[in-house]
Every structure is written in structure tokens, then in C-alpha cells.
């Protein structure tokens, strides 16, 4: 990724500083060292680097280990890192074991200058001190330049989402393809109503800070509204307390909107446990005892996905599942009747609401997909041509694309 012009000057300035520091420290370390009592060789080439793209709150100290630090037969037991600032007294700020050669000092203040020494500590109590480094000041970087391309991509995609939301708000009709799993929600709820059996809604096992859980609760709002209309029994076991509170609020609002406030019961949403397989045991037990006619598995799932889905399959429930965890998607495809794959889970609330502004955001996603497809095609074509012809230009295109779309 070629850095922005500003970044280049900052980066080159940083390189010159590091190079100068290295040369000074290398020269001083090689010319003179202070063996101290016990005559154990001190570490050499002490380098102090400012951590890139941070708030100016840490410095990394690295060194070449003592000549006496030999793996397996070492006389050295540890290294002690000493620091002084502003001509003040030197103090030990940390110790690392023999064999290690870096230490991150996270107790520095921006705009203060620090001088470091590293001491070898021998098994017999002897110590060997390096010479002090030059004073180094930790810097703050305002923007993480490694993420600048990602930042621009977010701006383009965010802008296109907002543009299409506005377009939809002005009344333009937007086409959204049919999603089978969402079209089947009516059928699934109707089936449970006809059979007089409950509907089980499982929102995954993660907390409210997980976007999949949030997407699941938005779908719950639409589903529970329909359940309230049909007067069907709903049960939602949860693995997180905050999801319980948010789930209750969501269902309560749906029942109020349906004019069925009397049918709402807080116990529809029940906390089970945070423990993954304890939760699975309780939910599987419910499936076996109550035999729900319909099961929704929508949210963040891990190893428990197949245990839940297979149990639901064995009790004959119609199952609609959806997750954004690629490793769990095949399990749901194998065990459930309908599966929302990845992005379909996030599109569900917009799709079900039919609200123009929400549908507009889905069209914004399509711009992102279009850009991704174009970049993939260009990258594949350039890599193939570079491989076949040995062209430096096309190899450069591939390298540039790799840099742009790689986040360090």
C-alpha cells in the first residue's frame, strides 16, 4: 500500500531517527560497556523505538542478549530494565527472563524524554550494565496510516449506503431479490399455530455487543409481532442477561403494537446460563419435552450449532437458521429447512420491514459487492498475465492491490 504523501514524510523522518539512534547506540555499546560486579557481559545494541500509531503511551526497548546468555548452559538468569527521565534518579521498571530481548514500557508519558539501560543478572548475583541510550520521546500519531485505505473504503461504502437510503426516501422503487428463508417465516409460524405447539426462538449465545445478536433481535421484533397476531406460544431461552432484558422489551413492544398486551408474559424470555453446553443441555431438554413446531436459530453460534439444529430436526420442527459464522453455516444447511447465509441475516430486518429507507441500505451494500467483484477480477487477471508474461507492470498491480486490501 503506498502511503499518503503526509505519511511518507512522517515515515521517512521516523526511519532517519531510528537509524541515527541505532548507529549512536551501536557505536556506544560496542566501544564501551560497564561490566559491573561479577564480570558478566552486558547486553549490547540497546534500541528504543516509539510504537507506531499509538497515543504516545509506549516505547519498545530491544537489545542483543549478553554473550554469556547461552541457551541451555546460561549463567544469565534475567535482564533488568532501568529508566531515568529528566535527569532524575534511575529506577528499575521491569525484568524479563534470560533469552528474551525485548521489553515494552507502557508507563511512559507523552512529551517526556526517557533514557534506558539494560542490566544482565547472573546466577551468582553478578550484574553487567549496558551504557545508557539517548533520550527518546514517545510520540502520538493522530491517524493510523496502516488503516487509511480501509478508512477510505468505509467512507465510500458508508456514503453509498446513505445515498441509497436518501434515494429510497424520495420514493424511488428498489428491487430486492426474494430470500427463501424469510419468505418461509409466515409458513413456519402458521404451522405452529395449526399444530397448537410452541415456537422456539434461539438468539445465539453472544451478548448485546455482538452485531449478530442485534440483527437477531431486530428479526425477533418482526417475528413476535406476527406470533402475537396468531396468538401462538413463544419461548426464547437466552445465554446472556442483557439479551434477556432486550428480548423482553422487543417482544413486549410487538405485543403492544398487535393490541395483545394481555398475552405478553415476561417468562417468554428466560435466562438459562452463560455456559455454552449448559445452555445447549437446557434448550435440547426443552425441545424433547415440549416438541416445538417451529424453531428459529438466528444469531451468533459456535460448536453448539449442530447439537441444537440436529435436536430440532429430530423432534420434527420446521427450522429457520441464520448466522454470520462461516464454519457453522454448513451445519445449519445440513440440519435446517432454511438457512440465512451470512449477509442475509443482516438484511432480514430491512427485508421484513419493507420500509424504503431500510431497503435503501441493502442497495448500498450492493455497491460494496460491485467494487469487491471488480477488484477481484482485476487482481486475478493481473496475476494471471504477470505469471504468463513475467510483466513487471502487472506484478506491480497485484502487489499494489494486495497492499491496499491488507490490514496490518
Amino acid at each position, binding site marked *: 500500500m503506498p502511503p499518503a504523501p503526509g505519511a511518507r514524510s512522517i515515515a521517512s523522518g521516523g526511519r532517519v531517527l531510528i537509524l541515527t539512534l541505532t548507529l549512536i547506540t551501536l557505536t556506544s555499546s560496542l566501544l564501551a560497556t560497564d561490566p559491573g560486579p561479577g564480570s558478566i557481559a552486558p547486553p549490547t545494541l540497546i534500541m528504543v523505538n516509539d510504537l507506531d500509531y499509538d497515543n504516545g503511551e509506549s516505547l519498545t526497548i530491544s537489545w542483543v542478549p549478553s554473550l554469556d546468555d547461552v541457551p541451555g548452559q546460561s549463567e544469565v538468569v534475567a535482564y533488568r530494565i532501568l529508566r531515568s527521565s529528566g535527569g532524575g534518579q534511575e529506577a528499575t521498571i521491569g525484568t524479563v527472563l534470560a533469552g528474551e530481548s525485548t521489553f515494552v514500557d507502557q508507563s511512559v508519558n507523552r512529551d517526556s524524554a526517557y533514557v534506558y539501560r539494560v542490566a544482565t543478572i547472573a546466577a551468582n548475583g553478578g550484574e553487567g550494565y549496558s551504557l545508557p541510550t539517548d533520550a527518546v520521546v514517545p510520540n502520538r500519531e493522530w491517524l493510523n496510516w496502516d488503516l487509511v485505505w480501509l478508512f477510505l473504503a468505509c467512507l465510500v461504502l458508508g456514503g453509498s449506503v446513505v445515498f441509497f437510503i436518501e434515494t429510497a426516501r424520495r420514493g424511488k422503487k428498489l428491487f430486492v431479490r426474494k430470500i427463501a428463508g424469510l419468505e418461509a417465516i409466515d409458513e413456519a409460524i402458521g404451522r405452529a399455530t395449526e399444530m397448537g405447539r410452541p415456537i422456539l426462538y434461539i438468539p445465539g449465545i453472544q451478548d448485546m455487543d455482538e452485531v449478530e445478536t442485534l440483527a437477531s433481535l431486530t428479526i425477533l421484533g418482526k417475528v413476535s409481532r406476527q406470533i402475537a397476531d396468531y396468538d401462538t406460544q413463544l419461548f426464547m431461552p437466552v445465554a446472556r*442477561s442483557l439479551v434477556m432484558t432486550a428480548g423482553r422489551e422487543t417482544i413486549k413492544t410487538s405485543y403492544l403494537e398487535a393490541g395483545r398486551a394481555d398475552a405478553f408474559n415476561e417468562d417468554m424470555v428466560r435466562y438459562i446460563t452463560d455456559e455454552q453446553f449448559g445452555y445447549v443441555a437446557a434448550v435440547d431438554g426443552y425441545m424433547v419435552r415440549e416438541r416445538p413446531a417451529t424453531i428459529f436459530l438466528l444469531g451468533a453460534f459456535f460448536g453448539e450449532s449442530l447439537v441444537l439444529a440436529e435436536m430440532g430436526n429430530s423432534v420434527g420442527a420446521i427450522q429457520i437458521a441464520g448466522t*454470520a459464522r*462461516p464454519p457453522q453455516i454448513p451445519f445449519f444447511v445440513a440440519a435446517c429447512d432454511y438457512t440465512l447465509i451470512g449477509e442475509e441475516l443482516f438484511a432480514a430486518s430491512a427485508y421484513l420491514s419493507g420500509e424504503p429507507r431500510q431497503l435503501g441500505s*441493502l442497495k448500498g451494500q450492493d455497491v460494496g459487492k460491485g467494487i469487491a467483484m471488480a477488484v477481484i477480477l482485476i487482481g486475478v487477471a493481473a496475476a494471471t498475465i504477470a505469471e504468463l508474461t513475467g510483466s513487471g507492470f502487472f506484478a506491480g498491480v497485484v502487489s499494489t492491490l494486495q497492499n491496499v486490501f491488507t490490514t496490518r
Partner: protein
Amino acid sequence: MRREVPLLITFITGVVFALSYFIPGGWLGQTERVFGDWITIVQAFAVWLGVLNLLKISLIKIQRKEHDWGYSVVIAVCLVGTIAAGMYSGFAPQFESFRDPETPFNFIFRNIFAPLGATMFAILAFYVASASYRAFRARNREATILLIASFFVMGGRVPLLDSIFMPIIDGTFFADFAGWIMSYPVTAGQRAIAIGIALGIMASSLRVILGIERSHIGGGN
């Protein structure tokens, strides 16, 4: 106000978290850390909401002798017993912490909790077999392709096929072929899904931050 205040909080925290990813320092970074601490504190207190709800429902079920009330007795006894064991292990002077190997809490963890969790996890092996059986039935063209691909992947990974065909095909042809299937077609499919997910998360987050999507706070306009 009941809608506006949560929407405003969502907007501010959303913008702060998004920007602090790109701008690590300054007041944005500090605010993000403060918000992170708040989340941890709220989650810690929220645990009690869940525990009390579980206990309340279990006790009501026992009191009314509802259907399957015996399970509620087990839940209530285990819940109260584990909390008591944890408190004793944490405060008794003979233990340094409740994590000490000799504590009653650790005994419960090692001898009841961990084996029960492992048992549930082990059931997964049987479910993988039954789900695979259904998935691999060649009912249509896609399922047939899946069946053939899975035959080569499983046979190449074991590596059964290379052993069987060793007299005819020398080397690791089937293991390499299984590796090729996993590295190219499977990875390409997974990356396509991952790109869609990333874009979906972004659009979904924008809907929430901009207040267009409100179901998580009870919906409404």
C-alpha cells in the same frame, strides 16, 4: 424522550467506537476505553439479573408444583450450592483464592461441571454423522457434487485413498487433491461469504447508528 435518549446514546457511542479504530490517540481513544469499562461494569451487574430471574422462575415452579418441577429443584439446589461453595472458597482463611485446587468450588468445577460440559460436546460427534448422512444424499445436482467432493476430501485426509491406490498411483495424489479442494473452491466460497458478511455488518451498523433500525430498543417511530 424514551426513544430519543437511547438513539442519541447509540449514535454517540457508535461514532466514537468507529472513529477510535482509525484515530487511536487523544480524547477519542480515552473515551473509547471509558465506554469499554462501562460495558464491562454493566455486563457484570447484569449477570445478577439473569441469576435472580432463573431462581425466581424455578422457585415459583416448585411452589406451584408445575409440570416437571423436579428439574427446577435440581436447578435451584445446584445454583445456591455452587454460589455457597464459591463464597466459602473465596472467603475461608485456609484458601488463598477460590481457584485453589483444594477448594469445594474447584471440586465442583473439576468433577461435575467440566465432565458434564465435555459430555454435551461429545454428543456433537454423533450429530455430525447424522447430519452428514442427510447432507450427502444425492438428491439433486448440488448434493451430488457435495457427495463427490466430500468423498475425496475425507478419503484424502485420512489418508485412506492413497493407501488403497498405492499400487496404481504412487505418492500422495489424493491427499494433494483434498488439499486443493480445501484451499481453492472451499476458500473462495468462504471468502465470498465473508465479504458479504463484512458489508452486511457495515450496513446493519449504519442503520443502527443512524437510528433507522430501532427494533433492539423496542422499535417504534
